[in-house]
């Protein structure tokens, strides 16, 4: 396993876009947070906020944006290989396909964990700086250090793994990136609206992205349950992708 992991590390780390996406995934949401918190805390009629005087946005609301940016890292894991014919070199070097699949999953997970930690840290710093720039003092949102932060990282990882699995399944990188994002920001909100009218209260337990977002911001076992459902959705895509990877021509 060490060989395929080393191969994946060189593969993923020698592409400039990997590092660019990690930076964009961390800095763009942080910049938005900084702008919003500065704007809110600068408003003359602003009266609310935490006891120390500054208002923050939290971090969980920006995680879908982080995940959407990092999706490309997951999708490229298989997408680049099929697009440029590298998969044949990969499988001639490492003929055990399950090991290759596992190495790709592990390397994507490790990279995305680091990227998510960096992104959350940047958002926390931006949340602290926004009120400070507006003259309300530094306000640290420590919730990211507890279970919500951990759930946030898991949410981003599974979101990116969805893109990974979809690309592996379809061998189509753009599809692997677009489908999770469109599902999260367009399709599921429409379904949610219908569910609201129909009073389908269980719908949050079925929709992967809606449920997972609720899970990050939620509490206790229910929050973890939502992430568990999100992971099950990943397995629904990943298992056929793995089986087809074993059976299909390279």
């Amino acid at each position, binding site marked *: 396993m060490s*060989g395929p992991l*080393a*191969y994946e590390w*060189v*593969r993923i780390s*020698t*592409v*400039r*876009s990997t590092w660019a996406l990690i930076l964009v995934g961390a800095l763009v949401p942080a910049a938005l947070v900084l702008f919003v918190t500065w704007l809110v805390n600068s408003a003359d009629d602003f009266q609310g906020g935490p006891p120390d005087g500054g208002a923050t946005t939290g971090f969980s609301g920006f995680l879908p944006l982080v995940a959407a940016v990092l999706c490309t890292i997951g999708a490229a894991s298989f997408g*680049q290989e099929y697009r*440029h*014919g*590298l998969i*044949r*070199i990969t*499988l*001639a*070097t*490492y*003929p*055990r396909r399950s090991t290759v699949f596992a190495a790709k999953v592990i390397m994507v997970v490790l990279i995305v964990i680091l990227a998510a930690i960096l992104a959350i840290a940047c958002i926390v710093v931006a949340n602290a700086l926004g009120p400070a720039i507006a003259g309300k003092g530094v306000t640290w949102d420590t919730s990211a250090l507890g279970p919500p932060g951990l759930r946030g990282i898991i949410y981003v990882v599974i979101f990116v793994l969805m893109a990974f699995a979809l690309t592996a399944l379809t061998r189509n990188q753009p599809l692997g990136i677009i489908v999770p994002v469109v599902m999260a920001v367009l399709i599921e909100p429409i379904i949610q609206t219908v569910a609201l009218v129909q009073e389908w209260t269980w719908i949050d337990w079925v929709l992967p992205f809606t449920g997972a977002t609720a899970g990050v911001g939620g509490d206790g076992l229910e929050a973890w349950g939502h992430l568990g459902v999100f992971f099950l959705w990943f397995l629904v895509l990943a298992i056929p992708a793995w089986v087809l990877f074993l*059976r*299909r*021509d*390279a």
Partner: protein
Amino acid sequence: MAVIAEGLGKSFGSVRAVDDLSFEVPDGVVTGFLGPNGAGKSTTMRLMLGLDRGQGRTLFDGKPLIEHPHASEVVGTHLDARPFLPGRTARDHLRMLATDARLPASRIDEVLAMVGLTEVANKRPKSFSLGMAQRLGLAGAVLASPGVLMLDEPANGLDPQSIQWLREFLRSYAAEGNAVLVSSHLLSEMQVMAQHVVVIARGRLVADGTIEELVSERSDVLVRSDDPARLADALRAAGGLVEREGDDGLAVTGMSTDDVGRRAFDAGIAVRELSRRRASLEETFMELTGDAQEFAFGPTGAAGEVPS
């Protein structure tokens, strides 16, 4: 490290691309893998490596590739013209391939120098010419000094000097005791590069042997005489296959020039010309695969005909 392919088969829908194909790639020589377009050469190579799923098996030193702990030390491949990410430098591409055999950076520099890409080692290959891309592919194939090389059309896009270099490199690589399988459409190049050839058509084996064996089977002796009819009888009586060629000529197969000359002398027939006609690899190839080309061209004369 000899390679044995046994019963390879593969279908695409109703088309049988490779059909019960068995052959051996011996050590110590360059084996040319020949066949018309669509004959199944690339599919066969992918089947041998386990990249395509199909029937049969291929043994590398007696074992399937998957059972070797370090595949890159067993077989080096170059199957596609541009098998790299355009945005990853040539050196990083080789660094990636070096992970299986845990090769040091010095080995990467060595192969880059060998294929003449040292100056562009840190450049991204998106601007590489086809020839440079082929060199990088070859560098990747030989990186771990594998016992087997499998190259699909490696001479495409190379200039004459590079082709000459490739020919000499592959022959010397094989001479070190390695097995080298090279597919190519350049038959004249194969004639000087390969010592052994495997010819397939429509996915089936049509010839397997040394170039000398294949060409000899299709060579004949031309003899001209004042009495070709009597000479033909004498040669047929000696076991030769004789065909009339022109007014005074005979094309004889199955006999050497010495035998033909001796039979003519014994029969008291004067001979005006006696020569061995050696078929080229191209002629042999055309004879073996003549009706097996997919999407064959029409007759060249048709281009000049104007419908009335």
